[in-house]
């Protein structure tokens, strides 16, 4: 098991290196191929009153005049050993892992990410609890009552959930429950409270985003669980379990659901990992300053350190989530052996 984990972690580092190189290359090589000069690239970050002289100085300060390999090496060195940053009135040490300084705000990226991570984690965790609980629950019930009114209704609602984009459901839910048209009991956008400040207010401020996000995911999980359960419940070992006289509850949950869980866990790992990387639409719609909004700002401002930071952090979470999923396989399904 330990060897397996170590091997996977080494693989993850390799993958993150590739991701960072690709991101770096896209950011720098593509504009250069299009003819952008270091000064031209620096001019994106020096305001609109900048002179050519300022652009030259900024290109020098941002290191754009150095070969790409040197720039990338400097970035990696910052992650491993930290970096120094000249903020005009002095030099600041950016401790490892230093993901650089934003080209636009001149703020260190890593603290920014850590500052926004709790928002995204809160959003993803709460929504995940809802969508797994509700989605899997409905899926199981639908499978057990195949063809019933409940099954049909649940699957129609699930289809709607999958089909409706989050920016639409978010807008509708806020109109209905936040702005007094007709209800006014849900928290307004941009009113996020940290869990340290107040647990009830934290939950209150996230309730609508959780439900909105969970609605979409729960729908697909319900359909996935239903399909898996229908298949599993038809297996021979289920018949054997019933023949042995096990209670139906045990047959469903210990044997049926367990067998159907494997693909759900796989999808959950990917979904959750990606969400931590930034639930861009949900965060934007509900004005939550999480990683998703940070990524959007970075992309809009063509701010490489921000984009790189979010990309790497998202990749880390996807890798970690997948690793946990792979480990869970062995727990859920006794036939799986990690090697």
């Amino acid at each position, binding site marked *: 098991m330990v060897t397996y984990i170590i091997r996977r972690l080494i693989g993850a580092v390799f993958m993150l290196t590739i991701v960072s190189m690709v991101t770096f290359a896209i950011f720098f090589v593509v504009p250069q191929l299009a003819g952008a000069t270091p000064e031209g690239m620096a001019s994106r970050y020096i*305001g609109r009153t900048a002179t050519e002289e300022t652009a030259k100085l900024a290109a020098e300060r941002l290191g754009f005049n150095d070969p790409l390999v040197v720039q990338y090496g400097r970035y990696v060195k910052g992650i491993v050993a930290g970096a120094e940053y000249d*903020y005009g*009135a*002095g030099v600041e040490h950016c401790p490892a892992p230093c993901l650089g300084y934003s080209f636009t705000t001149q703020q260190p990226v890593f603290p920014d990410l850590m500052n926004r991570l709790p928002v995204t984690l809160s959003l993803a965790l709460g929504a995940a609890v809802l969508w797994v609980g509700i989605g899997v629950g409905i899926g199981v019930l639908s499978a057990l009552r195949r063809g019933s009114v409940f099954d049909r209704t649940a699957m129609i609602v699930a289809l709607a959930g999958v089909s409706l984009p989050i920016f639409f459901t978010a*807008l509708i839910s806020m109109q209905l429950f936040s702005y*007094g048209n007709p209800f006014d009991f849900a928290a307004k956008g*941009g009113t996020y409270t940290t869990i340290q400040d107040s647990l009830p207010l934290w939950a209150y401020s996230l309730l609508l985003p959780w439900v909105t996000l969970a609605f979409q995911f729960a729908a697909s999980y319900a359909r996935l669980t239903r399909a898996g359960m229908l298949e599993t419940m038809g297996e021979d070992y289920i018949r054997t379990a019933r023949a042995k006289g096990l209670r139906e509850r045990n047959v469903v949950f210990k044997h049926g659901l367990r067998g159907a869980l494997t693909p759900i866990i796989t999808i959950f790992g990917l979904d959750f990992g990606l969400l931590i990387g930034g639930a861009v639409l949900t965060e934007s719609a509900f004005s939550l300053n999480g990683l998703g909004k940070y990524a959007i700002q970075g992309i809009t401002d063509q701010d490489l350190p921000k984009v790189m930071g979010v990309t790497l952090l998202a990749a880390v979470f996807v890798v970690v989530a997948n690793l946990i999923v792979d480990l869970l396989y062995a727990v859920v399904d006794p036939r799986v052996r990690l090697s």
Partner: protein
Amino acid sequence: MRRKPVWAMTAVSAALAMGLAACGGTSSTPSGESGSSGQPAAGAKNAFNAALTGVFNPSTKKGGTLKLANSGDWDSLDPADTYYNYSWNFIRLYGRSLTFFPGKPGVEGAKPVPDLAAELGKPSDDLKTWTYTLRDGLKYEDGSPILAKDVAYAVARAYDKVTFPNGPTYLNEMLDWPKDYQGPYKSKGADYSSAVEATDDKTVVFHLKEPYSGFDNIVQMSPTIPVPEAKDTGAKYKEHVVSSGPYMFEKNEIGKGFTLVRNPHWSEAIDPNRPALPDRYEVSTNVNADDMDNRILSGDLHVALEGSGVGTAALSKVLTDPALKERADNVTQQRLWYTSINPTVKPFDKLDCRVAVQYAMDKTAYVAAYGGPTGGEIATNLVPPTIPGFKKIDLYPSPEGKGDVAKAKEALTKCGQPNGFATSVSYRAERPKEKAVAEALKESLARVGITVEIKPYAQKDYFSSFAGKPSFVVKENLGLVVNGWGSDWPDGYGFLQQITDSRVIRDGGGSSNTSVRIPEVDKLLDQARLEQDVTKREALYAQIDEKVMQESVILPGIWAKALLVRGQGLTNVLVSDGQQMYDYVALGVQ
């Protein structure tokens, strides 16, 4: 021009040689709210445009929390590094510059009054040296005295455009800086007294390279807000700006928001300009714009900081609901959306061909492109009505602004093109409103036989490489360039200089003036720069405006407007011509 968020520009004096591109263009209820109805206090009646001509819901009551939100984020909270219109409005809560646009409705709010300075600047006879004397008893938030050297230092640090890339550069270009000076960080210990100096604890002296009579407008900008050198942390100063105003930072989370609370070392005795009514300002940043509009309408938020008006979704809601509409103000801004008519492109070298465009254009289509009457009103000349000394000039009248085809054809005949001709129009590809203008031009001019090819270009390089580059304009036959301009300060010079001075046009591109090359206008601008009599100065601006219109090198489209909504429970709401949005210093809560 202050961004909105829009473009910037260069400084006044240096702009004579070089112009830059410009644009076109936890509790969920606010404290003190007067109830779910959101009705204002007795004596204040909700009415459409109530805050334009007077003070809506006047009050001297102190206390409460003012809640504001911004759909984006500040470029920076540092006075040396910010260039948004709303930011210059808001910064006055925690920073005091030498002069100030007072919180008075209309034109009175566009006349600078002393702020940190005890009186307006005293110019030398040649208008090249300006002296300001600070008030007595000024203090920072920590109780330490505000000294003249702090103002000089603030101006010097703002010179460093690598550390502070966003701020305005007027003082960089106007003052007589030492050769190779790079600001106090890189040019450590360098003497910059040739540009700005503190001759004693209370006197700041500015030395200009070229005379300028309107310098009081320039020192109203944020770079003259004092910065104590010992507390200066360069690019990190924005994390905690040391307050010289009535409020100071309690909390500042860049990218999320911040809170201002009262500065214990500020008092009305040392500041006659700020009522400082609320106890607290809570500002959220990066808030979804539609969410922000909805929260203002529902009473959860007081102010949308950008002051650029509600979005499309909320606009129709406000205009169709009488109860909401009476909470709205349709503010005219100091911005002109226009089209340059380039005389360097044939046949626009002939005056009558240019005049034909003035008559052929249906300006109601221009208004429609910007969202209808709440987005702007038909402009007949350059200078907008909110600039002091405004004079309406209508040399090319037409019924309801829809154009006069007969007169257009007559002009075409005079210029030897009775059947029309072919030309091209450029616009910024990222701007759908400009695209609509280009299409409207094509349609309107087709009525008189002028065929127009529409050419979009990237916004970022619009002036530097395309529409602002004279050789490119000729090569691509860009007879028409969709354009726009907003003023950084409310006077004729601030509005006209960058778009009518031929000396800002550079062969290498970069100026938003692509069409005005009139020697007489250049002379009038120089004359206005030296004229100290306001009335005479304003008359000169009107002359410039008229001359440009006579030469027909600019087709004015609309004077921009924005539809603002007053948050529920606000007091002292007013729109001054100095801010062209709600004056944030004047506001209070019930």
